[in-house]
């Protein structure tokens, strides 16, 4: 046994003193406070988080871990969504058939179910996270800016949900987006049926009409069709997740900069 222990120690020492190891880890084992700080500070993912948290502030009954669960669901949705993109084609001709194939003919046809249920769950956890933050007063100064970021993230989550809803291209999707997009007609100034937009005219020529208003630019058309499907697909897969990822980085960073997770009063 002493020999085995000696060998293991030697292997460990040779490994941790190699250039490869040292190029990855710039610090020793996190056995001292200084090294624990360095672990966090020298890691691009961890450094977004506070170096230290209040013990009371990370209790499950205080945070519900709803922010963490939301982020976890975002990662799950990114991963399953990426896999779905290997089989789904956003065209009127193929979209619905590909969705059916994802269940019937693709190996382990649960990938779309994971994505769909994960999306529903994420909307719920975002609301619960906001509810918790509100009830614990964690939106108060100095955290009011981060509350604002959070509200934008809520909107992005709902828009991701909305854009993803069209992609199966079944009757439910098409008419839900038809109804949803109709709301954009009532946008003040920018929707052709919205308040004040009728006043925007040069002589007899109306500047905001059904062919150039907010609903039109959302769908790329007057009705839900090929352009709308492609627009929603691009927003769903690239535009909105990218914006959400950037804002999440800011959100986590501000938690750290604004004094860490708030403590119970």
């Amino acid at each position, binding site marked *: 046994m002493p020999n085995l222990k000696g060998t293991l120690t030697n292997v460990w020492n040779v490994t941790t003193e190699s250039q490869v190891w040292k190029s990855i880890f710039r610090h020793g084992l996190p056995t001292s406070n200084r090294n624990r700080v360095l672990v966090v500070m020298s890691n691009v993912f961890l450094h977004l988080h506070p170096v230290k948290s209040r013990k009371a502030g990370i209790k499950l009954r205080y945070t519900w871990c709803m922010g963490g669960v939301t982020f976890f669901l975002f990662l799950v949705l990114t991963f399953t969504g990426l896999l779905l993109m290997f089989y789904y084609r956003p065209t009127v001709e193929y979209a619905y058939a590909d969705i059916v194939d994802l269940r019937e003919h*693709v190996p382990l046809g649960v990938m779309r179910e994971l994505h769909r249920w994960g999306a529903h769950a994420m909307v719920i956890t975002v609301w619960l996270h906001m509810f918790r933050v509100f009830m614990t007063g964690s939106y108060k100064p100095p955290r009011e800016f981060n509350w604002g970021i959070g509200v934008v993230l809520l909107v992005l989550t709902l828009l991701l949900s909305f854009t993803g809803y069209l992609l199966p291209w079944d009757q439910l999707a098409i008419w839900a987006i038809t109804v949803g997009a109709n709301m954009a007609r009532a946008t003040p100034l920018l929707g052709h049926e919205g308040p004040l937009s009728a006043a925007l005219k040069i002589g007899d020529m109306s500047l905001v009409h059904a062919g150039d208003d907010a609903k039109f630019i959302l769908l790329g058309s007057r009705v839900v069709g090929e352009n709308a499907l492609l627009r929603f697909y691009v927003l769903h897969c690239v535009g909105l997740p990218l914006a959400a990822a950037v804002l999440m980085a800011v959100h986590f960073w501000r938690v750290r900069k604004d004094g860490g997770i708030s403590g119970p009063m």
Partner: protein
Amino acid sequence: MAEAAPEQQSKEAGVDRRGFINWVVTGWLAMTASLVAGLSATGRFMFPNVLTEPPSSFKVGFPDDFAVGKVDERFKEKYRIWVVRNDTEIYALSGICTHLGCTPNWLEAENKFKCPCHGSGFYISGQNFEGPAPRPLERVKIVLADDGQILVDKGRTFKYEAGQWTDPESALKN
């Protein structure tokens, strides 16, 4: 290397050393099992169950459908082969240039296959004679099916340079 928590702290938490180790081992096993399951499922996901490729084995019609001395181009678009009939035999040539894999064209007027990518030329037999192609076009398996039709199977190829063009399945005798 995480040391077990000091005796005092463990007692406060109501966890003894054995219980702690049991939890750690169970946790690691559960996490490893779910990781392995998830990664294998993801790996399997990338291998589709349904392919849209044309079948590699197919019937092209009866021998009398093919004129002597002609290169039949009907099957090039879908299956990427030519069926050629001469005085003595019927054979199927693979439409894959032996240089870098483009599809040559059959030039009726010049009586040769010519690859548009780098100019490789092949006689009607498939033998290369100009350009960078290092060896003749390959022939694919051609036999008579039970119903008298010609059955072509791209799963089996015959290389001239390996002496395989003498194989009975590389051509149908007239």
